[in-house]
């Protein structure tokens, strides 16, 4: 279980000193750090094989296109996507979900139908649906949560009914850590003929994801949270649905024929990739996927679980700490509050010790209201973290308490 220590050498930023202390990076749920392998792959591509893709009849064009499509293939395999042409590169989860909301939601959700969400959705999987609901005149419904921050599936079974057009649920909560039973939720949606959209931003980096088994209609995630570059993410969509949808962004590459007054669209997945894509970022994401696969997602999930459980235990044994989220079946985030200390102050005081945590609403304002807090502190873990990082966190919390007491 010494994964953390073994891989730290691959992440140059972990040698950085913050306020004179070694960096303890506990903010991977916001964004993960990048291993050498990703940066090297990015640079090697730009130094040896770079060109625009798809349209070039020259060696570099072929090389770049080949690498870009190889990235798509490898990512498709990583998430066990049922169809390669359903794997669309986007800038990240929000663009992926916006694409679905605009091109599927606004076209196919009808007046009077319902869109079912949860109160733990990240704004990225909430606000787009608010706008769809407003645009078409649909109703928003929220699956209630139990007090431990898990979904009440019995209620979900009632809420998801004949009126339901879409069910949009996060695979793993970025605040509570809750891992939702997305397979069951997809089934509930399909039973009533609704489409299921799963936000995988916090899941894909941390556990094996198998879309063949889960069977969602749409699934999205971000590269930068899984050791990859910023500026790239993925939407998986079921090809037959994508084919029925109108394009989202329009411009180069996504067209087939363009006349002055109208245009026709390219095949999948290109229909949804307008303009020059994030080419080098796709290559970087491919390297990240390779790196994750070499270690093994099962092993990463175990390590995350170990660290999270350890941190929860340690935090629970401190005085005056409120912990949020379920005790089992959870991802690599721990949200908490220290009585009498605003999480912003806690984060700032931990930073004095070189410890980076996140404090705020985590783009989940409705969930903050549900928890009845203004904000939480959140420590999140990834494969480069160790039990020493947890110890530093606990020590830091004690120090903060002393300072502000």
């Amino acid at each position: 279980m010494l994964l953390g220590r073994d891989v730290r050498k691959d992440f140059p930023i972990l040698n950085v000193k913050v306020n004179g202390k070694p960096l303890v990076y506990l903010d991977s749920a916001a964004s993960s750090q990048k291993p050498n392998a990703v940066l090297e792959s990015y640079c090697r591509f730009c130094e040896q094989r770079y060109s625009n893709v798809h349209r070039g009849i020259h060696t570099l064009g072929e090389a770049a296109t080949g690498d870009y499509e190889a990235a798509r293939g490898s990512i498709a395999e990583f998430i066990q996507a049922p169809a390669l042409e359903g794997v669309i590169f986007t800038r990240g989860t929000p663009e992926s979900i916006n694409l679905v909301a605009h091109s599927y939601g606004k076209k196919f959700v009808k007046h009077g139908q319902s869109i079912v969400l949860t109160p733990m959705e990240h704004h990225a999987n909430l606000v787009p649906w608010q706008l769809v609901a407003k645009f078409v005149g649909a109703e928003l419904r929220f699956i209630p949560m139990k007090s431990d921050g898990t979904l009440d599936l019995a209620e979900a079974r009632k809420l998801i009914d004949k009126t339901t057009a879409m069910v949009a649920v996060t695979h793993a909560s970025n605040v509570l850590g809750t891992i939702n039973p997305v397979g069951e939720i997809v089934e509930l949606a399909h039973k009533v003929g609704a489409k299921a959209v799963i936000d995988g931003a916090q899941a894909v980096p941390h556990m094996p994801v198998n879309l063949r088994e889960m069977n969602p209609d749409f699934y999205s995630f971000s590269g930068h949270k899984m050791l990859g570059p910023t500026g790239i993410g993925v939407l998986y969509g079921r090809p037959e649905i994508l084919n029925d949808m109108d394009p989202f962004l329009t411009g180069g590459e996504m067209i087939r024929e363009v006349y002055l007054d109208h245009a026709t669209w390219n095949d999948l997945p290109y229909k949804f990739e307008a303009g020059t894509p994030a080419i080098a970022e796709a290559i970087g994401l491919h390297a990240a996927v390779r790196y994750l696969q070499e270690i093994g997602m099962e092993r990463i999930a175990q390590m995350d679980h170990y660290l999270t459980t350890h941190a929860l235990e340690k935090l629970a044994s401190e005085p005056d700490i409120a912990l949020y989220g379920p005790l089992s079946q959870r991802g690599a985030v721990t949200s908490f509050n220290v009585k009498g200390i605003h999480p912003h102050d806690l984060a700032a005081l931990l930073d004095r010790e070189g410890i980076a945590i996140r404090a705020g609403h985590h783009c989940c304002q409705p969930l903050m209201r549900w928890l009845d807090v203004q904000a939480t502190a959140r420590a999140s873990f990834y494969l480069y973290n160790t039990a020493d990082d947890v110890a530093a966190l606990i020590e830091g919390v004690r120090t903060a308490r002393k300072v502000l007491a």
Partner: protein
Amino acid sequence: MSDLYGEILLDHYRLPRNKGQLVGETLSVEGKNPLCGDELTLHLKLDGDRVSDISFEGNGCAISMASASMLTEDLKGRSLAEVQRRIEQFRSFIRDGKEPDGEPLDDISALAGVAQLPVRVKCATLAWTTMEQGLLQVKQS
């Protein structure tokens, strides 16, 4: 960041000046920082053109609360024109981290570190923008 939570700031946070309601207030103004969740109410008692008394209530981080405490201490007894000048001095101070010309800032200068922390600027300025809202209300009534 290390110098932000210094003795002066912590003192205002631990022992806030003028915290609570104000009997016989002329008006109260609410301020909010939605991204942080900081909430603040300023209570003002005016005596003609002068802030004869002032207090605050609120909920938020140490920076926003200490800044509110400093504000009440600093503005109590001042004329509305002076208050406006102080707000402007504070703005320029928080932007540059340097004491502006004119009357010294005293305790308030403990907030200098905020200038390098864009995320915290809104915490430090909450009380001051709320006070400015108060001035506007006074002028309009």
